[in-house]
């Protein structure tokens, strides 16, 4: 007992010293009036000591978990603590979350391993090392107690924040500092799903209470002493130039401080980099924006001012006649077999450009001084702004501090760290030596987003025995920005080239056409565009041979367990049928995305005059495992709404090399009256593989709706937005 008291006192002294030494969370910008992340419980613990980079434990038992991923509503700020608390074994109500410190991460051995937050991956791919951090902390606590209690560590149990062995008992907090010094002979293995006590529970996301009262801080909410504001306009045809402007016309307006020109970097006209343009800096954003609107600017649009939706469509038609790169080939001579004739069918499908349009317009705040640089940027990778600014201004990473805020949506578009806007803010602040907040108008945000690539696809099949396809051919034409790999060719025919259906002879080709228009990943990249395409063509093939669409899919995925599980669940719960009276229809689809297998079943009504209503939507997912059903359902509903938005209403208009529908009066999104409620079902394989949850709800949903429209009206809708098609029937 004596010994324990002694350790406790020592622990306390050391933890206090630790806190005084500046608890690493970099929210201590001198002079900041409100430049802090959200209030409680995101504040730095005052008396906590850390066992490892991932967590601290306060004297009162509060466990603060540092999350290196971002929170855009997808739940990382809850899922990461859940996985650590699972292993650490502490009461959930004692757990708090804060964003991890990226300056420490990049300058001290990258302890968090991965800081990005995209690709539905935080749980799917990162759970092993995150759970490991919790398990390791638990074992060190046990080892520290074992030394003091003079027992073998195997005789110490760690449960719900309490260490015990025989008559000895202590709080984790009593041993936290000692535990930090323990070297384990061997790191523990992480728990298997049958051992979980916390993972699998439908825990509400921790930050919800902050998102109902305006206190959650987003990057755009940053306020610093002496801060100025900038509004920017870059050439609406990307990579075009500024020909002239007349700053004198507006410089005497109230509050105007300066004008800053931006230049695309020669040799760096990479998708996410700077465009040519101007910024007006003022003492309020509204004054800056108003002056910028009034200032005459002439642009030199450059060589790309003739590109339009029509020129791209014509190029696609030309390329349908040209052999492309082969992305997947099975069996032999699929095209030759189809060209021999017989029972064949073919169709062309198209999905247009879409934009991210996260509700928080792109923005960044940067404060550059000789000593340090502070940055707030709506990025999906907490560490990205640090790297971007270090690269752009040539400053040491040790001098740069990232203040992670909540993201007002991201959806893949902020993957590179809102690169251009962060550089713009860094340039202005570097020049004026004042903190500056840059906000893009919605028009600038959509004009200069890195868009989702458009695709034109031709599909052909020949049907053989029992009316099932014996040969299948696809040729996709995809338009991306030059030099881009991650959303380029690999996603051009994703879901088509990778379809599971057991067709003996298949050939999948694609053309990746380089354009001047920046493109990027977009929630459910490839799968969202192509799910609509392949899963309708599947219905076309099935119906051409009088197959029931659900039975066709079951037949064509025989032996593929993850797919069968989804389809059988669909059969069990959805009541899918093809004999509804005209004007009503049900449709199904199933698509793999981020290693999850997701099905959708939609019931629609279409009035004779062509008015579409989605009456019911069921979503069935096989993600292998599931750690939080509540959060998962939110993501499935959200992803379904995301892709229904594009399929029903979206589509960017490209004219004269630039996008013309750049605000919500002309780029339309799903609104409340149009959104059906969704029922989510889980059909889990639970046999060793993990799938993602943030994106897979999207890809099958519009295809299910379009297949239902076909049953209701007899009309096959092969391009989006669906609302531009005449769905009337008689």
């Amino acid at each position, binding site marked *: 007992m004596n010994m324990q008291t002694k350790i406790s006192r020592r622990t306390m002294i050391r933890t206090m010293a630790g806190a005084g030494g500046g608890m690493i969370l970099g929210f201590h910008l001198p002079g900041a009036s409100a430049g802090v992340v959200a209030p409680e419980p995101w504040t730095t613990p005052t008396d906590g000591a850390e066992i490892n980079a991932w967590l601290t434990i306060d004297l009162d038992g509060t466990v603060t978990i540092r999350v290196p991923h971002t929170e855009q509503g997808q739940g990382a700020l809850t899922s990461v603590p859940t996985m650590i608390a699972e292993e650490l074994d502490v009461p959930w109500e004692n757990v708090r979350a804060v964003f991890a410190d990226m300056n420490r991460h990049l300058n001290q051995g990258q302890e968090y391993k991965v800081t990005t937050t995209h690709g539905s991956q935080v749980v799917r791919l990162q759970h092993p090392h995150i759970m490991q951090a919790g398990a390791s902390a638990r074992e060190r606590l046990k080892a520290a107690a074992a030394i003091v209690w003079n027992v073998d560590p195997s005789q110490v149990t760690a449960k719900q924040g309490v260490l015990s062995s025989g008559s000895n008992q202590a709080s984790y907090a009593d041993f936290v500092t000692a535990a930090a010094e323990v070297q384990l002979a061997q790191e523990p293995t992480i728990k298997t799903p049958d051992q979980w006590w916390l993972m699998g529970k439908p825990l509400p996301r921790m930050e919800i209470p902050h998102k109902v009262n305006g206190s959650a801080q987003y990057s755009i909410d940053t306020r610093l002493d002496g801060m100025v504001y900038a509004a920017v306009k870059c050439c609406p045809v990307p990579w075009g130039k500024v020909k002239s402007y007349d700053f004198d016309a507006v410089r005497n307006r109230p509050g105007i401080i300066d004008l800053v020109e931006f230049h695309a970097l020669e040799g760096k006209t990479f998708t996410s980099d700077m465009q040519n343009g101007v910024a007006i800096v003022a003492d309020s954003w509204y004054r800056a924006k108003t002056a910028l609107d009034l200032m005459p600017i002439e642009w030199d649009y450059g060589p790309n001012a003739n590109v339009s939706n029509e020129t791209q469509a014509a190029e696609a038609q030309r390329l349908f006649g040209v052999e492309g790169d082969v992305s997947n080939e099975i069996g032999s001579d699929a095209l030759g077999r189809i060209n021999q004739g017989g029972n064949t069918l073919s169709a062309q499908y198209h999905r247009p450009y879409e934009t991210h349009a996260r509700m928080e317009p792109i923005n960044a705040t940067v404060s550059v001084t000789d000593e340090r640089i502070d940055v707030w940027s709506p990025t999906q990778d907490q560490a990205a702004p640090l790297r971007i600014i270090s690269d752009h201004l040539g400053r040491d990473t040790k001098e740069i501090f990232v203040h992670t805020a909540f993201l007002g949506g991201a959806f893949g578009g902020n993957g590179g760290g809102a690169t251009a806007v962060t550089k713009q803010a860094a340039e202005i602040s570097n020049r004026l030596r004042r903190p500056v907040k840059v906000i893009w108008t919605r028009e600038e945000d959509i004009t200069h987003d890195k868009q989702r690539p458009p695709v034109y696809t031709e599909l052909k099949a020949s049907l053989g025995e029992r009316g099932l396809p014996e040969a299948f051919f696809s040729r996709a034409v995809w338009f991306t920005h030059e030099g881009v790999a991650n959303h380029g060719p690999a996603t051009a025919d994703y879901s088509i080239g990778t379809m599971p259906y057991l067709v003996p002879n298949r050939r999948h080709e694609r053309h990746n056409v380089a354009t001047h228009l920046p493109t990027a990943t977009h929630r459910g990249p490839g799968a969202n565009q192509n799910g609509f395409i392949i899963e309708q063509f599947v219905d076309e093939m099935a119906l051409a041979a009088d197959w029931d669409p659900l039975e066709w899919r079951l037949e064509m995925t025989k032996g593929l367990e993850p797919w069968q599980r989804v389809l059988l669940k669909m059969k069990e719960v959805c009541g899918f049928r093809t004999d509804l009276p005209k004007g009503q229809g049900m449709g199904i689809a199933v698509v793999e995305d981020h290693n999850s297998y997701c099905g959708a079943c939609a019931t629609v009504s279409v009035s004779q005059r062509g008015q579409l209503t989605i009456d019911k939507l069921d979503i069935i997912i096989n993600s292998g495992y599931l750690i939080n059903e509540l959060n998962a359902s939110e993501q499935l509903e959200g992803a379904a709404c995301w892709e229904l938005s594009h399929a029903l209403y979206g589509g960017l208009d490209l004219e004269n090399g630039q996008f013309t529908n750049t605000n919500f009066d002309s780029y339309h999104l799903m609104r409340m*009256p149009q959104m059906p409620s969704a029922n989510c079902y889980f059909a889990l394989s639970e046999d060793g593989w993990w799938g993602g949850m943030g994106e897979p709800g999207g890809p099958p949903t519009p295809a299910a709706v379009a297949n239902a429209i076909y049953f209701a009206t007899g009309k096959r809708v092969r391009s989006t937005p669906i609302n531009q098609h005449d769905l009337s029937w008689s």
Partner: protein
Amino acid sequence: MAISLRVNGTAYEVDVEPETPILWVLRDSIGLTGTKFGCGIAQCGVCTIHLDGRPIRSCITPVSSAVGRQITTIEGLSNDNSHPVQQAWIEHSTPQCGYCQSGQIMSAAALLSQTDNPSDSEIDSAMSGNLCRCGTYPRIRAAIHRAVEIYDASKS
């Protein structure tokens, strides 16, 4: 030019052009950042506040029109998340990214102050000006029905 305003019961004096939208006065002059900017053209609803209890889009409403009237923002709805709409939002785990939710909540609170027990179609029409890119609409609808129950329970 100095303009006097009352926001959430507190008096402020701000020095801005009278045509400045209330949104930017709230966010940049006063420092109430719960009200958001999304489109600037009254199409998305993230800037929704109450002017004398009625929902308005603060991004297009000049500050001069608020003189002598009561502005209520999300920060003024309650000081402890106790407003029935806030409680229902928490119960239904409604916000995802959360960026649109100040506007959603202000629209919903205004609806419930005018309509005791709105039907789904009344909810749809009152909320149709509020975009949510995260797709939280089904939860918003359910949360509004739940808020009605919470209101009623607090009255009885």
